[in-house]
């Protein structure tokens, strides 16, 4: 799993991600995220890296309450 910065335009990517979610209900946002995860996973195409990413995402322990 590569955790060094690799996204060429981080702010542009983040803005595009937010724009895609704009106006969506929570359920539709969850659907969009799920589709995005699967599409990105297929770009990665490396089983070891995918499993490492799942572990890393599951380990993350948010310090803020996720419900606003």
């Amino acid at each position, binding site marked *: 799993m590569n955790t060094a910065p690799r996204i060429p335009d981080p702010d542009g990517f983040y803005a595009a991600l937010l724009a895609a979610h704009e106006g969506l209900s929570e359920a539709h946002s969850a659907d969009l995220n*799920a589709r995005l995860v699967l599409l990105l996973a297929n770009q990665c195409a490396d089983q070891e890296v995918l499993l490492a990413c799942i572990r890393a995402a599951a380990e993350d322990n948010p310090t803020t309450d996720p419900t606003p």
Partner: protein
Amino acid sequence: MENFAFAPAYELPVWPFTPPPELNSAKLVRHPIVIVGAGPSGLTLACDLAQRGVHAVLLDEDDTVGVRGASSRGICYAQKSLEIFERLGIYERIAAKGITWSFGRTFSGEQEVYNFNLQTDGVRLEIETPAGSYAIEADRLIDATGANSPIRAQLGIEAHSSRSTDRWCISDVRFKKPLPTERWTWVDAPFNEGRGVWQHLMADGVWRIDYQMPEDCDTAYISKPEVAGARLREQLGPDVEFEFVWIGPYGYRDHLLDSFRHGRVFFIGDAAHVVSPFGARGGNSGIQDAANLGWKLALAAQGKAGDALLDSYDAERQPAARQNLQVTSRSARFLAPRSPAEHTLRRAVVALAARHPFARALVNTGRMSVANDYPPAPVLPEGARTVQNLPLHWADGRETTLMQLLAEGTQCIGLWFAPTREQALAALDATAALPLRLLAVGGESGLPTLRPDDRLAAHLGMDGAGGFALVRPDAYRAALLSNATPQAIASAARTALAHDDKTP
């Protein structure tokens, strides 16, 4: 309200009771092998042993095969099972039956028809018949009694069973007008409140339509003819005429024994492992259990292999069952998501699959039964994998198949690519005491010779002349040698047959 017609029950074959000779004899008969349970696994093993000329007794609790009435039967037979049936000489009849072959599943009955007693030097069985009881003894007992094995229960063996909350209801129906013979699967059918539906043709012109039901459903209510009929009407529209063959609500469970061998007792089929139905891995893996065990029991009974070969049954089939359990559990979980997050992920998979090929690989409505690879073990240093039933030709042009070659006697087949005459003679000498039939593929060795065949070489993983593949009687490749020598061939065969200094 619409009235729904029912077809008559299946006619099952019946073999009337004839009193066994032991009933009127004081002599206690000892059999090398007793199989309990004449379902798909037990029958396959009994046929396998009979074809090898090995005496076995098959016990069952009734006078037929199949389930009385018109209820569910085994449906989908995978390639490996059909290859086993070809070796047993019954494939043609099975294929002629139609789309698939209906095979009755026999679970153990409710009443006790026998009990058994494990002794240090054998197994003693007390058998109840309509004409009284008698006893027999067995060197080895095969438990093919199915999911609710009383033998397993009596031995106190933990099955690690777990029950699913997923509920389904089968409607088996015949249509007046034929439908296209396609298998249709809905992960979330609009006419079934967004739950799954399976639809495919079986033998005898019967369609299986299997509806996923709510987890908390009333199984008696959902399987009433008028309720099941209304479900079909919703799906098919008002004009399609049909009659019911059977309606059956079901849940499923799984279990897996830690070991498939307990001394003189061997567990095969559902007695050893039960998985969810997705992918047809139940009956198919039971049939493969039988094919794995049959030749080993035969060689042991004939004194041509030692007890260690019988241990390999557990070493090979238990991991295969564990793999089947994992595969079917994943299908079951895809079909019955357990949380809102799982529903969300499945919605994403289904949405993407409509447009993107990669996502179709994630749609898991069941992964069809395959012949599992076997892991490395004492008799399989490199592990083993199935060898398909490729069509072959003798050097003089006559046709044969691997299964036809394996149907003759109980022996491994050594496929040797273009050996020399000197090598062949030396190898025949070195392996004379082993159940091994040496065949050449091409060359002028003097051995029985098959025509050179690129497809066979590629399938076996062979690269060029001098290569050797050791194929077991269950059509698994046990060893692959490049530049084989007579000594290496003899050594590979002894390893695969668990021959050491103590065994013949």
